[in-house]
C-alpha cells in the first residue's frame, strides 16, 4: 500500500499548472456547465419515469386527437436531449476549446507527452 508512483520526472510540473488561474478557470467553466446540465436532465428523466409508473392517468390526458400528454412528454424528452446536445456543442466550441487548446499548446511546446507507463 505504500507504493505511490514517483513524481512525474517529465518537463512539466502538472501540480503547478493545476494551481494556475487559467487552468482553474477552465475547470470551473467546464463544471459549471456539465454538472447543472446533468442534474437537470437526470431529474427531468426520473420525474418523467415516476409519473409514467405511478400516475399513468396523468399521461392519459388527451392533448390533441389521439395524442395524449404521455406522448407529448415522451417526445419532449427527445427534444430536450437534442437541445442539450446542441447547447453543449455550442458551449464546448465557444467557451471550452479556446481555453483548453491554449493550455495544451503551451504544455506540448514544453514537451509534455504520454505518461511514462505508456511508452512501449
Amino acid at each position, binding site marked *: *500500500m*505504500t*507504493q*505511490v508512483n514517483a*513524481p512525474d520526472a517529465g518537463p512539466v510540473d*502538472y*501540480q503547478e499548472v*493545476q494551481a494556475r488561474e487559467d*487552468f482553474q478557470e*477552465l*475547470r470551473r467553466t*467546464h*463544471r459549471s456547465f*456539465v454538472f447543472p*446540465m*446533468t442534474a437537470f*436532465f*437526470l431529474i427531468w*428523466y*426520473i420525474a*418523467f*419515469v*415516476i409519473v*409514467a*409508473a*405511478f400516475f*399513468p392517468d396523468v*399521461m*392519459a390526458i388527451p392533448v*390533441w*386527437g*389521439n*395524442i*395524449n400528454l*404521455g*406522448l407529448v412528454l*415522451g417526445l419532449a*424528452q*427527445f427534444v430536450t*436531449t*437534442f437541445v*442539450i*446536445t446542441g447547447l*453543449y*456543442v455550442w458551449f*464546448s466550441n465557444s467557451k471550452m*476549446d479556446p481555453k*483548453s*487548446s491554449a*493550455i*495544451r499548446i503551451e*504544455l506540448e511546446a514544453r514537451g*509534455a*507527452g*504520454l*505518461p511514462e*507507463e*505508456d*511508452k*512501449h
Partner: protein
Amino acid sequence: MNSLINASITDAGLTPLATAAAEAGSDVGSPLANISIFLVFVGVTLFFVIRASKNTSTAADYYAGGRSFSGTQNGTAIAGDYLSAASFLGIVGAIAIYGYDGFLYSIGFLVAWLIALLLVAELMRNTGKFTMADVLSFRLRQQPVRIAAAISTLAVCLFYLLAQMAGAGALVALLLGIESGIGQSLIIAVVGSLMIFYVFIGGMKGTTWVQIIKATLLIAGSAVMTVWVLALYGFNFSELLGAAVDNTGEEALLEPGLQYGADLFTKLDFMSLGIALVLGTAALPHVLIRFYTVPTAKDARKSVVVAIALIGAFYLFTLVLGYGAAALLDTETILAAPGGQNSAAPLLAYELGGTFLLGFIAAVAFATILAVVAGLTITASASFAHDVYAQVIKKGKIDSAGEVKAAKMTVIVVGILAILGGIGAQGQNVAFLVALAFAVAASANLPTILFSLFWKRFTTRGALWSMYGGLGSALLLIAFSPVVWGRDTSFFPEIDLALYPLTNPGLISIPLAFLLGWIGSLTSKVAEDPAKQAEMEIRSLTGVGAEKAADH
C-alpha cells in the same frame, strides 16, 4: 424487460407455424431471399474487413483502428454498436404489444447518451489509450485497479454477448424458418465463426466498418418503413394511433402501464431498469472503446453528437413502426409467429413491402447481431490482452506486435466461448442478461469513472470497493431475484428463493457502488499521488499528449 428480445426463445421451435403471416415469414421462398440479401451484406463487409486488415499492424491499429476514423464515421459506428436486435426487434415488438411502455423503454436508451456526451466521452478520450482500465488506473495503483476494471469489462461483455448469441438462435427460427435445435446451433456457429474471422483479421478497423454499414442499412430501412406507414395514414400520426387502438381493441395502448403497471414491484422494476439504462450506457466497455478510434476529443464529441442524432431518429422511427404494426397486423398473428413479439418488425416489413422488404429487414437483423457481437469481441479481447496480459502479467514489457498477437488469440477464445454459450443458452430465458449488462456497467464502472475524473480525494480502495461492490451486489441480487426463482419464466420455477423482488438490480446496486466508492476513499489510510491526479485532470480537460497517442 423479460419480454424484450428472445423472451420467446422458449417458444421458438415449438410453436407450429399456424398462421398465414407466420408462414410468410418462413415459407414462400422468402428464407432464400433473406439468406441471399444477408450474403450480399457479408460479401460487402468482407471486402471492407480484408481491406482494413492490410494496414492493421500495431496495437493502436488493432484496438483503436489507428485512431483514423472521423467523428461522423465513429458516431455512425456507435449507433451500429448500440442499436442491437433488442433495440430494433424488441422495441418495435414491445410498442406493438404493450404500446406506450415500449416507447418508455426507448426514451431511457436515448437520454443515456447525455451522460456520455457531458461527462465521459471527451475526458476518457483525452486520458486513456485503449481501454476503460487505462483511465481508471491512471492515478491509482495500477495492478489492482486494472484487474478490477478488466473483470468488470469482461463480465459486461460476456452477459451482452450471451444474450446476442442466444438471440441469434431465435432470429434464425423467425427469419429463416429453421426450427430444429441442431439447425439453429449450426447457424449460431456460422455467425460466430464469421465474427471471429472479421475481428481476427480486421481488428477495430474491420469491426467499425461492419458497424457503419449495418447502421446505415438499419436506419435507412426503418426510415423507408416509417415513411411508408405514415403515408398509409395521410401523414397524420394521431390517425395512426387511432387505427392502432381500433385494430387491437386495446384502449390502454396509448398510456403507460400495460407492461409495467401491474403492481408496485413491476413499477419499481421499471424505475430500476430506467436508471440502469441511463447510467449504464456511458459505462458500457464496448461503447467506451469506440471513443479511442478517433484522433481527438473534439472528434469524440462529434461522435456522440452524430450518435445521438442517429439513435434519436431511429427511436422515433420505432415509435411509428411499433404503432404501425399494432394498426396493420393482428396481435394474435404477431404473438403466434416464431419469435413472438420480436416478429412484429419483420411481419410489418412483409405486410408493407412483401418478400423483398422482409428479406432486407431480415438481413439487417442478422447484420445487427453480427456487428454487435464483433464489437463486444474486440472489446473483450482488448481488455484481456491490453489490461490483463500486457500490463499485469507482462508488466508492460511487451511490444506492440506481441500485444496484437495476444489480442488475436483472445478473439478466438472469446469467439468459441460465445458460440458455445449461445448454443447452450438456446431455449433458456436469457433476456435479463441485457438489462444485467447495463446494471453492471452502471454499478461497477460508472461510479469509478466519474469519481476518478471529478473527485480529487478518490483512492484505490474507493475504486476497488466500488467496482467489486457494484459487480458483486448486482450479481448477488440477480441470483436471489425472480429471474432465477419462483416464476414461470425463472430457471427454477418451482422453488421461490427470490429474496429480492425485482428483476433488475440497479435500484440497489448503483447507489451502493457510489456509496462504497465514497466511503472507501474517505477511510483510505494511503493518499494517492497528487502529481498523478494533477496530470490526469489536466490531460482530461486539455488533451495534452492525447493526439500523439496514435504515433506508436
